C-alpha cells in the first residue's frame, strides 16, 4: 500500500532544480507532501485534493495526475534550507489509514 518515490536520493547545488515523484499501485484521491529534517518530525508542505490540481508556495510546487496515480514535487532554485527527506502520503484502501511513501533524501550543497 505504500507509495513508491523516486529518486531515493538526490544531491543538488544551490540554485539547481529537482523533481521528486510519487507513484501508487492504487487509485489516489488525495496526495500530501511533507519534509523531514534530520532528528525532527515531518512538517506538512501541501495537499492536492483533485486530479490535475497544481499547487505551490515559494519555489516549491506539486502536481497530481489522478489517472496515472502519480504526484510530483518540484523544487526550483534550491536553497540550503531545502535539504531533508521528502515524503508523499495518501490514504489507504479503507480511506481512514494514512500511509507515507518510501521517501526521497535531498541534499543541497553550496
Amino acid at each position, binding site marked *: *500500500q*505504500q507509495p513508491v518515490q523516486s529518486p531515493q536520493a538526490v544531491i543538488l547545488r544551490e540554485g539547481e532544480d529537482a523533481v521528486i515523484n510519487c507513484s501508487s499501485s492504487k487509485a489516489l484521491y*488525495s496526495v*500530501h507532501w*511533507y519534509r523531514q529534517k534530520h532528528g*525532527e*518530525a*515531518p*512538517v*506538512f508542505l501541501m*495537499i492536492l*485534493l483533485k486530479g490535475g490540481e497544481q499547487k505551490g508556495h515559494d519555489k516549491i510546487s506539486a502536481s497530481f495526475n489522478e489517472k496515472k496515480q502519480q504526484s510530483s514535487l518540484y523544487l526550483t532554485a534550491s536553497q540550503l534550507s531545502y535539504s531533508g527527506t521528502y*515524503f508523499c*502520503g495518501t*490514504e489507504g484502501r479503507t*480511506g*481512514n*489509514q*494514512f*500511509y*507515507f*511513501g*518510501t*521517501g526521497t533524501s535531498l541534499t543541497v550543497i553550496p
Partner: protein
Amino acid sequence: NAGVTQTPKFRILKIGQSMTLQCTQDMNHNYMYWYRQDPGMGLKLIYYSVGAGITDKGEVPNGYNVSRSTTEDFPLRLELAAPSQTSVYFCASSYSIDSPLHFGNGTRLTVT
C-alpha cells in the same frame, strides 16, 4: 495551543519490559495515528483512530496496543519489549483524512 504532545522524549527499556507512550492533542482532531521510523527509513503506520472509542490496525501492529477513550489522548502500549521495537515513534493528528497531519516531536526508544 500546544498542538501534539508526546512523552517521554527518550526511553531505554530492557527486553521484556512494558511501557506506554503518551500522546495528547488540543486541536479537537478526530484522526490520530502512531508511526514508527527506523533509522534511515520511512514512516510505518502502527495503529490509527478516527474518533474516541474507535481504533484499528495499521501496517505493523504486532507487539503494540492502543486505546482512545477521549478525543485528546491516544496512548501506545508496548508489551514485552523486543530489540526490533527500537525506533523513533511519532504520534500525529488531523481533522480529517484530507487535512494536514500535525506531528508530535517523537519518542526515541531503545530496547536492549
